[in-house]
């Protein structure tokens, strides 16, 4: 009995210093991530609609009421349109670029550097040039892409000021910025597939297209999932880009911008917290399963 206790103690002495070393980070994450998420949720459940009132518990009232606001519907619709165009656009373009490069070509390093460099720049800086490129002025007032389109005879467009499809235009700079990243992910994925597998499929009489269809694409599924998660969570919280391109205009409102307006212009903490909670929930529903899945997968291997 004494020996058993002694070995437990010895084992504890083996791991305790490690735990102590990580403790500051555990506390920091506990307070700043989980504590503040909780604080935000509980604030969202009060009627603290100005900065001085105490705020009484009202349950999910704010979460329901916000759906009565036209602006909220607008910003949710915008976020959905933006997400669809951005995620699909970056995924398809990134995949295609990787597909073109995977066999190994001359100057690959240069091409990679060109496709990836937008990642190194802030949305605020790139927003400035995209706002110019997507300027809605037409004909003699046209600058940017409209001027270019006018010269080559393509139709001009209001871009992000378009009533219905403006957010699709807003997704263009985001695709520009992120598709190089997706390309890098897919390129690593392509290169991770052993050549013998493809060779075996060819020996079995697969056409080159068949090899892609039946061997390469299924093996790229984990990469595609990672890319989807990363793009999706970036998309749902997008803020910098919209602020840099169009500011806090209704026409390009998204939940993250609406939240900023609720906090700093309406001075309504409870509403800001409610919007923030919705953003967190929309990300959490797919990120949490993904995290659990990937940690389990890693433990198995």
């Amino acid at each position, binding site marked *: 009995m004494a020996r058993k206790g002694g070995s437990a103690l010895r084992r504890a002495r083996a791991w305790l*210093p490690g*735990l102590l*070393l*990580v403790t500051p*980070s555990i506390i*920091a*994450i506990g307070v700043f*991530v*989980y504590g*503040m998420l909780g604080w935000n949720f509980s604030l969202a459940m009060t009627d603290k609609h100005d900065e001085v009132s105490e705020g009484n518990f009202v349950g999910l009232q704010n979460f329901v009421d916000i759906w009565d606001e036209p602006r909220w519907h607008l910003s949710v619709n915008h976020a959905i349109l933006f997400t669809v165009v951005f995620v699909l656009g970056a995924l398809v373009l990134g995949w295609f*670029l990787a597909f073109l490069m995977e066999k190994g070509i001359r100057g690959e390093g240069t*091409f990679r*550097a060109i*496709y990836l460099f*937008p*990642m*190194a*720049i*802030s*949305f*605020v*800086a*790139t*927003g*400035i*040039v995209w*706002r*110019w*490129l997507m300027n809605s002025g037409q004909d*003699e*007032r046209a*600058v*940017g892409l409209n*001027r270019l389109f006018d010269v080559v005879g393509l139709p001009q467009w209001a871009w992000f000021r378009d009533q219905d499809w403006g957010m699709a235009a807003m997704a263009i700079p985001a695709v*520009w910025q992120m598709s190089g*990243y997706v390309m*890098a*992910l897919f390129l690593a994925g392509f290169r991770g597939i052993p050549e013998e597998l493809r060779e075996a499929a060819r020996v079995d009489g697969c056409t080159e297209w068949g090899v892609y269809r039946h061997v390469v694409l299924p093996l790229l599924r984990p990469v595609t999932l*990672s*890319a989807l998660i*990363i793009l999706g969570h970036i998309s*749902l*919280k997008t*803020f*910098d880009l919209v*602020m*840099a391109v169009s500011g806090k205009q209704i026409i390009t409102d998204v939940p993250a911008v609406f*939240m*900023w307006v609720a906090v700093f212009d309406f001075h309504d903490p409870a509403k*800001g917290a409610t*919007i*923030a909670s919705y953003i*967190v929930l929309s990300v*959490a529903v797919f*990120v*949490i399963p993904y*995290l*659990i899945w990937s*940690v389990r997968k890693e*433990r198995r291997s």
Partner: protein
Amino acid sequence: MLIAFAVVFLIPVYVLLVTSFKPLTEANPSQAWNLPQVWTLEAWRVAWEKLAPGIWNSVLLAVPGSLLSCVLGSMNGYVLSKWRFPGADVLFTLFLFGMFIPYQGVMIPLVQLMVNIGMYGDISGLVLAHVVYGIPICTLIFRNYYVTIPDELIEASRVDGAGMLRTYWSVVLPVSGPAFAVVIIWQFTSLWNDFLFAVFLTGPQSWPTTVMLNNIAGAQATPYSQQMAAALLASIPTMLIYLVLGRFFMRGLMAGALKG
């Protein structure tokens, strides 16, 4: 095909460069895509004057912030890969979720907390926020790197009677160079480019580059040439890092996808 895409990708760079060297007299929309007839540095000079305080603030933010992140990430990564305790996996998963949370979800309480502890509107508060919310990604990068160190090396050091910290100091730290480079570059770039935390947590005295840049560009009166020169100025540090140390930049990116 690849060349065509590369040209499209570089269009914004062309526009930025060309416009930033134009004098105000060439602001005519019909010449929007032309090269400047007269090259001038005037826009750059004005942009530098307006942006310089923000750039200095960004340096004060990004340099200490990325170094602190390294220290924490390295210690956590070491423990979570080589000196594990019961429940380390669960803890790691809980850390990782912190990497994906939309920061909007913590912003209102964070502002409140910063006000309460007197760090609101101060760069130190912004550094604190970035270091804390950078813990997950930095831990992940270091952990994935340290996993590749053979366990035998750690064991050998243990048998020699070295404790956890001695082993870290004499065995692990000397081979950590690449991981430090990845984390410093990753954190420096994210801190330099961050807008959300900065706009919520800083005031006019402590505005970093991104906020100042957004203010400059948001003002109707600012000519395009100055806006574009300012955008280029604001991007020079991260672009330099990307061009010179692109290899490490890439590794940070890949770690962001949960792959080692």
